[in-house]
């Protein structure tokens, strides 16, 4: 439906209901001007079926909690206008892919975040509170690499978009690897060798086929593909120089 028709007519919306073995249920939702996909879901829950489960918080693209599958692609529903994605007045909404379904539009993100921990996504300090502040040159090459990847808010869109995650369930995925890359480039961090070992191999960065779905769909316009390429390079270098801690 194009924007000229906005404010009139109805959308036919297929919404996933139930768990992993659920099915789509059709709802008719009034078309409005400047309507977002999150508006559509909220209309369904408030006026058509109060049992519909979905997640959202900020409504303005800051929290990342409203990510769902919209017409086959993972998106932030609050930042996706119906104009942009509806085809012939139809929408298909499901939970994020590559995660177990809790119910309806809610996916279980536990495994997704567990992989951040497996990729050693925690900062490992090398100084104490008694030490002076670290001086990090914002123009240094390492800091620029970290800055380019640092804005991730963990919405799971890249993980849901990644074919390698679907094929290889052990694969850490774009978000966890992107996080690891920011820490590899953090001069204050003390776990570089262990982290490069944690992200190497066929469950880590070397499983990436550079399909770039993560980079195409990241709502923050980050490039996890670039971060993963950096990890491939650095972990191979660490391995060749014997500075890795790989088993």
């Amino acid at each position, binding site marked *: 439906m194009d924007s000229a028709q906005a404010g009139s007519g109805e959308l036919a919306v297929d919404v996933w209901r139930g768990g992993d073995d659920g099915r789509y249920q059709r709802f008719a939702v009034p078309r409005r001007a400047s309507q977002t996909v999150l508006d559509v879901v909220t209309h369904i829950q408030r006026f058509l079926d109060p049992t519909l489960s979905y997640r959202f918080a900020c409504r303005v693209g800051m929290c990342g909690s409203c990510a769902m599958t919209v017409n086959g692609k993972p998106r932030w529903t609050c930042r996706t206008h119906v104009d942009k994605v509806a085809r012939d007045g139809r929408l298909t909404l499901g939970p994020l892919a590559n995660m177990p379904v809790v119910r309806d539009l809610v996916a279980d993100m536990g495994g997704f975040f567990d992989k951040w921990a497996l990729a050693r996504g925690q900062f490992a300090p090398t100084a104490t509170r008694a030490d002076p502040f670290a001086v990090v040159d914002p123009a240094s090459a390492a800091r620029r690499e970290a800055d380019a990847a640092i804005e991730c808010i963990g919405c799971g869109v890249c993980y849901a978009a990644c074919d390698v995650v679907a094929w290889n369930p052990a694969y850490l995925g774009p978000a966890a690897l992107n996080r690891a890359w920011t820490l590899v480039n953090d001069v204050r961090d003390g776990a570089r060798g262990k982290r490069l070992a944690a992200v190497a191999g066929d469950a880590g960065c070397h499983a990436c086929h550079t399909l770039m779905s993560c980079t195409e769909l990241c709502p923050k316009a980050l490039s996890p593909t670039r971060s993963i390429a950096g990890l491939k390079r650095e*972990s191979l270098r660490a391995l060749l120089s014997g500075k890795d801690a*790989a088993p």
Partner: protein
Amino acid sequence: MSRRAEVALWAAQRLTAALLAVFVLVHLATIVYAVRAGLSAAAILARVHSSLAWPAFYALFALAAAIHGAIGLRTVAAEWLSWRGRGADAAAVGVAIALAVAGLRAVVAVAA
């Protein structure tokens, strides 16, 4: 398989890919050249016999293809067939050996 071994396989895959990119171009260009110049099979064989460079080139080509193909098939088996572990690794080694033997046999047959 250890992480270190996985990274080594990844590096071998990239290295052989880089080699094959050059080898395939040389291979195709040679075919086009030989056909355009109207060389017969006998004439080509005579040239190959009198050279050490061509058998060496094709021996490297065959080995690189064997390594590259086997590592790639192992990944395909893991991702598309969910076939992982010792059995898949052994099968990949088998594929590598079979490809290398077939390729080197052809090189020897032409060069000897």
